[in-house]
């Protein structure tokens, strides 16, 4: 997702978080009944996102409910690279004991945020981007000279 697309999503009012991806782990969440010994268990993913808030770095924990087909934490895969700037679309978020916990919007996946100009430059190949139709002609190339050689005229 480019930064332009991200801005569009924000302007539409979607709840999201952007930060540096720090890692993920699959966790088997269990509820055990002490009386009968029965267990309710399901696998969920915990993503760690680092972002700056109030001038200092903080980590946000984002929970994702994994599909029922994933029965063990070892079956979950996270094809994300640590250090990437990523966006997470959220269903909700809450503060608990001074820690921000968020819940990923069902059906959405974390996406890498790319700079729009860099992506366009990369797609063009050599760094040149074709101008749209009707655009004014490009300005003539400027001739740059060193300051020391430029004659200084008194005002």
């Amino acid at each position: 997702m480019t930064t332009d697309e991200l801005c569009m999503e924000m302007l539409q009012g979607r709840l999201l978080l952007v930060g540096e991806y720090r890692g993920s782990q699959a966790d088997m969440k269990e509820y055990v009944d002490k009386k009968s010994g029965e267990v309710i268990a399901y696998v969920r993913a915990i993503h760690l996102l680092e972002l700056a808030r109030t001038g200092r770095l903080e980590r946000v924990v984002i929970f994702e409910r994994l599909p029922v087909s994933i029965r063990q934490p070892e079956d979950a895969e996270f094809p994300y690279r640590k250090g990437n700037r990523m966006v997470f679309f959220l269903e909700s978020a809450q503060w608990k004991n001074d820690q921000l916990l968020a819940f990923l919007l069902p059906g959405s996946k974390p996406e890498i945020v790319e700079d729009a100009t860099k992506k366009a430059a990369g797609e063009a190949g050599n760094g040149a981007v074709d101008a749209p139709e009707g655009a004014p002609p490009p300005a003539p190339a400027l001739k740059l000279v060193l300051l020391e050689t430029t004659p200084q005229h008194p005002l």
Partner: protein
Amino acid sequence: MTKSKAAFTFACRTLGKNPSLYLWTFTFKDVIAVKDTRKRWNYLLTLLLRTWPELCGIRVFELHPGGHGLHVHLVTNRFINVNQARELAHKAGWGRIHVKRVPSEKIGYVGKYLSKKRPECLKRWRLWAGFGQGWEWTKCKDVISNTLFSRVYRACKDWRGWEGRKGFFKRIAFTWQMTFKTIENGWLPGLGPNGKPYWLCCEEELDYNPQPCNAPF
């Protein structure tokens, strides 16, 4: 899933061991205040239990999304005469009632309202409860949750010798820091690098500074 919903699910499983289950719905003709609804429900439940002493089940409060006030869903384990129940409901000030047989595996449907955002007027309410004698339903305090955070907390508690309630918030903050390290470094829950318990790891391995400081971890 919350602990309350897990306890509800366990209670449903206990009740679902009966071969026949009945889902009752009690509604009001007019929209009345939520507090008055609770009083009327208590009265109705008293009348039902006096008439059928062996009756037991689970009741769930539900706020109707269409703005029709509070409904009560009831799951019972035995057949009771609907005409008698209707008379008692009218006596307690209720309106329309409805009943149908449900298979035991579908009983969890009644708990769907426990997952949704709780309406403001139902804050601090007991949304569901068991009733009747002769059975013990699972309560929230009977449920233990086992998560990555709780495993890390228990490991930290054993390592640091935490006792009592002193320094609760500092302990939670410390546990979060250890949880972050677990996720970032791919450690096993409750263990340090290479699967070693925390007390076996040195400070450099855990990147842990035992001196108290105000700087972030």
